[in-house]
């Protein structure tokens, strides 16, 4: 009995060790030329012992990661105000901080957390934002991200996307054995990784439902590829496809009722749309070439996909109403796996130039293409729901890592895992409060 208990404890410890190892570490590699200086003073803690989370630090890191802000180092602060009457603007002008964020954290009944915050314009000496976030204390980080979202939107005019999540696949190579694949969900900063599914067979193509309550992915657990849907709250899984040949690239329609996918059951890989209620399939493409990697336009009227029907992989657009297909990319020999920005005006693709694979952004109005990255073997681009950053997978040495670049190419950061390979990031939609 004792031996069994020791074994279980060891197994649990190993499991914990794994979840720690899968955690991503953020390294900002390039920021904007003139980032806005902001001081995030440590928040007041009105509770016993140490606070469950350094809320101010989470907010500061979020703002820094956007590349648009240069947070003031805590060591340089001349004061640590937590209330309006404690603010002396000269303390902040002296260290060239343009903005100041202060706040207070309290927890009642050791469950309910409340974060109050106030944002000040140091030069104009006025409060420009104040508010609060409330929720379960275990969601302290998510509440902190929501404060960062409010500050970001106030100062940039763009909705913040810090209170969002990432899906990715972490792979642990085991010498002489099959690799271990872990479908993982984390906060947008890589913190709090949770393994949603572990398998000795490949897991790939994770994607979010528009309400962020479900995910879909491809699993080889049946020794063949199959598309699965999984509910995040319960972990309940449903196998959606089991066709001969490819079963891949699940992509939810914006209304959440249909799923585009690639199947090769009728010979060559083609795009199909499954009605998730009836499970009925509609065939979208009918071509002997490879048609794959479907993605919806935000208005749900088009499906963009990769096809090599012209000899090399390029992006094509299928119009749902007319059934017409047109080619969208023309620059370069290889453009694949498109993802559209939420405003539908641009898309990111994997683009090959000079023999290297980069992430590029194509303006769908002007049709111009901009290469955003200078790393090689870049793939799986995913746009933040506010359109500010593109998360993608690349290689560093012989290891797969995640990296991000702003849509103007000005800001870059890397999110390597502490160990193993990470790949196929999928940025969540905006999350409803409490999720």
């Amino acid at each position, binding site marked *: 009995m004792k031996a069994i208990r020791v074994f279980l404890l060891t197994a649990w410890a190993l499991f914990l060790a794994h979840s720690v190892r899968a955690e991503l570490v953020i390294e900002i590699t390039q920021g904007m030329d003139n980032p806005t200086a902001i001081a995030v003073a440590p928040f007041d803690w009105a509770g016993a012992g140490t606070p469950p989370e350094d809320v101010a630090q989470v907010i500061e890191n979020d703002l820094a990661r956007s590349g648009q802000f240069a947070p003031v180092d805590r060591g340089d602060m001349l004061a640590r105000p937590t209330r309006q009457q404690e603010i002396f603007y000269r303390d902040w002008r002296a260290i060239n901080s343009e903005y100041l964020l202060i706040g207070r954290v309290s927890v009642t009944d050791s469950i309910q957390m409340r974060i109050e915050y106030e944002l000040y314009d140091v030069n104009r000496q006025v409060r420009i934002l104040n508010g609060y976030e409330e929720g379960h204390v275990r969601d302290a980080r998510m509440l902190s991200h929501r404060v960062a979202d409010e500050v970001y939107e106030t100062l940039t005019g763009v909705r913040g996307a810090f209170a969002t999540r990432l899906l990715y696949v972490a792979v642990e*190579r085991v010498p002489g054995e099959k*690799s271990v694949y872990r479908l993982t969900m984390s906060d947008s900063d890589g913190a709090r990784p949770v393994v949603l599914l572990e398998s000795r067979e*490949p897991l*790939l*193509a994770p994607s979010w439902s528009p309400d962020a309550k479900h995910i879909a992915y491809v699993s*080889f657990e049946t*020794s*063949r*590829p199959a598309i699965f849907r999984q509910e995040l709250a319960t972990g309940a899984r449903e196998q959606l496809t089991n066709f001969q*040949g*490819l079963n*891949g*690239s699940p992509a939810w329609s914006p209304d959440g009722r249909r799923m585009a996918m*690639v199947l*090769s059951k009728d010979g060559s*890989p083609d795009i199909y749309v499954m009605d998730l209620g009836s499970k009925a399939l509609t065939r979208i493409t009918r071509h002997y070439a*490879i048609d*794959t*990697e479907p993605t919806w336009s935000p208005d749900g009227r088009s499906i963009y996909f*990769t096809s*090599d029907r012209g000899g090399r*992989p390029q992006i094509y657009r299928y119009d749902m109403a007319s059934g017409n297909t047109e080619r969208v990319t023309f620059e370069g020999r*290889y453009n*694949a*796996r498109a993802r559209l920005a939420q405003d539908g005006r641009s898309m990111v693709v*994997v683009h*090959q130039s000079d023999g290297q*694979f980069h992430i590029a952004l194509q303006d769908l109005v002007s049709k111009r293409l901009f290469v955003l990255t200078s790393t090689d*073997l870049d*793939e*799986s681009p995913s746009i933040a729901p506010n359109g500010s950053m593109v998360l993608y997978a690349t*290689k560093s040495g*012989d290891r797969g890592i995640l990296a991000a670049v702003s849509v103007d190419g000005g800001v870059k950061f890397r999110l390597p895992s502490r160990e193993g390979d990470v*790949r*196929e990031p999928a940025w969540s939609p905006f999350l409803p409060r409490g999720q």
Partner: protein
Amino acid sequence: MKQLTVAGKMLTLLFAAAFLVACSSKGTRDDDAAAEAAARAAAERAAAERAAAERAGSERAEQQRLEEEVARVGNVFYFEFDSSTLTSQAQESLDAHIALLRTNDRTVRLEGHTDERGTREYNMALGERRANTVRDYMVVNGIPSYRIETVSYGEEQPVAYGSGEANWSQNRRVELK
């Protein structure tokens, strides 16, 4: 009459003896024929067995030769970059497998793989195309398609990690299992 009677008795005896001799001699001839037939049959059986053994032996030898040939060429067929065309070397290796598969009713699984360059789902399709190329070649050469299962792993299961052609060329492959 008495003499005649004696003579008659002698005759009777002679006849009886002759009959007995005749009977006995007839019995010997019948036994010989049966033995000959048995020997002939045994010989035939032995010959058939020898022939069968020889046939089986040569079949075994042929089988062994095919198996050795398959072991020699290996069960991995390599491809050029972004190509699903069989190289002549891959074709030669496949011919060895086809020759062996014609002698049995085994089913095979063809697993298509690519190198890491390009997108994962496109590579999934490319891996399938490679596996299908191998399957089609086998079908054309007499292996019924119901004995062949194909699956693509795309770039998910590299043999060689790391970048550069030396690694990539090992990963662009179809494995016969």
